[in-house]
């Protein structure tokens, strides 16, 4: 059951962050996504693919229930095929750190 995400309504989001060295930006981006989602009243789960490997891994259920997946990545993500039937918003990590709200604005308007 996929709900509608009208302006101002709560969206279920999954995200993956991954940067080149996996030391800093992967986690800064994850933090920004979580904080901003909370501020905007969205529900989000962020998987990090960094130097420690995959953490907070998205389950099949997480992905199935999500209305959108944000890929904040500088490198190719592992297991991209998981998202074949989910709407993908892909942005460079820098954008998430610089202006996280702009990333969420891409979710609206719902097509």
């Amino acid at each position, binding site marked *: 059951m996929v709900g509608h995400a009208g302006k101002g309504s709560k969206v279920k989001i999954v995200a993956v962050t991954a940067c*080149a*060295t*996996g*030391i*800093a*930006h*992967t*986690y*800064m981006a*994850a*933090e*920004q996504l979580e*904080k901003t989602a909370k501020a905007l009243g969205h529900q989000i789960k962020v998987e*990090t693919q*960094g*130097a*420690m490997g995959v953490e907070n891994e998205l389950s099949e259920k997480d992905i199935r229930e999500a209305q959108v997946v944000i890929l904040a990545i*500088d490198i190719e993500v592992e297991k991209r095929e998981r998202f074949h039937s989910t709407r993908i918003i892909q942005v460079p990590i*820098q954008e998430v*750190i*610089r202006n996280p709200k702009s990333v969420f604005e891409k979710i609206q308007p719902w097509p």
Partner: protein
Amino acid sequence: MLTNVRVAARADLKSVLSLIAAGISFGDCCAVRIDGVDEDAAGSTLRRFIEQELPKLDKPVALAPRTGALPTSFDVAGVEASAIRAHFGTPVSSGVGQGTAVIMSMIAIPRDGADGAADPVEERPRAELALRAVRAAIEKSLSGATAAEAAILSAHLAIASDISLATEIAARIEQGRSAFSAIAEAGESFAAVLRKSENEYIRERAADVEEICLLLLEQIQGTKLTPAPELAEASVVIAESLAPQQFLALNRIFLKGVVLETGSTTSHLSILARSLGVPMVAGVKDARTMTSPGKEILVDGTRGFAILEPAPEVRAFYEREQKSVTRREASLAARAKMPAMTRDGRVLEVAANITSAAEAVAAFEKGADGIGLYRTEMLFLERESAPSEDEQFAAYSAAVCGAGGKPVIIRTIDIGGDKPLSYLRLPAEANPFLGLRGSRIYAAHSELLETQLRAIARASALGPVWVMVPMVSSVEEVRWIKARLAGGIRLGVMIEVPAAAFMIDRLAAEVDFFSIGTNDLCQYFFAADRGNPNVARLASVRHPAFLAFLKETVARCRAHDKWIGTCGEMAADLRNIPLLLALGLDELSVTVHAVPAVKSRIRGLSVSECEALLDHALACESASDVDALLSPETPLLDAELVILDSACENKADAIRAMAEVFYAAGRTEDPELLEHAVTAREAIYSTGLGHGFAVPHCSSDAVKADSVGVMRLERPIDWGSLDGKPVQMILLLATRSSQKNGTHLRFFSSLARKLMDEEFRNQLMTVQDASAVVARLSRELEIGSG
């Protein structure tokens, strides 16, 4: 007569040259034969030298191994590599210098084939006169020489006084050669033997022989054979090779660097260049033809190349580098001299152990807070009679004056059967370490001690002097000294016989301070000779039993409110510092070169953490359990890696400065590689995350341990940040690429997340000092691992 069995070479033991020519390498088996009326005495002297002095003589030659690459940061400076005319060689003496090229011709022993029928009666005294004159000239130079110069001049004096060389010259004169030819041929024949050696160090000595012969020939001719060029402006001297005396003849005000075609890091010349701080590159092919006299040339003696007519960008790069080197040296020197204070505010004195007054000067330059042990034995060894009161006074007062008001602890003579003095006639003992030594010989040699105590008392007029007595096990021994020591001088005893530790209650009534001599105390405590490989492992200073003993000993001193330090090797091993800190000592006295590292280690510790660690160690079963407890990974954070007042003016400068901080703290051996790794990451996109923060990082084995460096700038600089604003706070995260440490990576990730929090950023931006940064970040570490 010595025979090197491996190569069947023989040498006269009285001749330095013939000994060198015997080509003795480490591990060679040598036979020695001694004949003559004094053969017994000579034999025992030689035996003692071989057993006790020889092992201490060999100093490793400091090699500068990196070679063959332009600085990676030239890329940052925007210099096209192809535009740089660089000629590579071996870095010999570090530093950078620039000047006009001065090309020198090579030194060679001239030949004079014309003469054949000279009169030995006339030539003999000419050669002898020349030898005497050269020896006198070297001796004269010796009087004003620095330590490095003196070492070389002494070697030259040995050659000029060499019996084989004199014999060889005399033999040729008897055959009808002129004094000139005899010297030239004898010198050449010795040099030729040395040049054939398989050992590079010995091959280098050929240049010394040639140089001495040249000086002899100049004496005979009465003219300079190799005039030194007059330097009149900043100059770089280029030569095939250069003799030490030629080098010393150059005007050092204008000498900015040396480029040699031959030569290596072991030659006397390179030792001189290093001690005088003249940048030098050796082994540069065709150096004399690569440029012409008067052209500008830059010598990078650190990296090992010369650059012809350097472009303005290259000069600018080196000017910037010089600035940061100067800053680094100033900051290292300033930090070395600051007291060693733990993170929680306890100050521990770090003093130096010395054997001569000259070492005292070096000790205070390295930041020693005092002299914790002045071993006076060296004054008494290797001589026919005891040093006079005046001679001792001169030595002690030199150390006291060098200390500039800081205390100097002079230990009374510590001699025994293992270090016999011919003029004391100590009996040979089956077990000298348990025999007559230290204070135990004093009563039988009261005059010796009284002279020493008088000399010390006189020196005490010049600054604070404490007297320390070795090998004390009873109150009587202390009273004996006390009765002979002038009033007003603090008296202490070494705790090195276990019995003394259990006499502290009574000793404390007689003395002012105690110093634990861990070396002997440990081997007496375990009844195991540390020099005996079969039992050495039993005598570990980290054994829980020994630590318990130390704890008890310090507590007894504390109960009597007495000052207590330690002057054993235990304190020079950085692993032991947390334990020694927890024991509650007032002072650690260590070898001179260890002073800065010990101080810096103390600054990274906290007493409460160390006390917990000591409790753990005391509960261990064995020394190896304690070893394991003490050698955990290097901590990620260290106040040494935090700079809160950086004056860096741009991004490249700041990254380089941080790499140098890592280098200074021993986190990397290759700051350039670290700099390159960080710069390469920045090239992908700037790590300036906005709000005045940047998190440059790298995953590279350029770092020896995962580390966090922190730098706060006095003035914000451009970092190409995401928000376009300048950066003031830089956090450098460095992990090793080959070993991933989960705990450290966890910390990095939680730190990265935390940096998204404005309040946290504000706290970091306004912390007062380095330890507060470490404390604040450590709290994050606990969050990260918890």
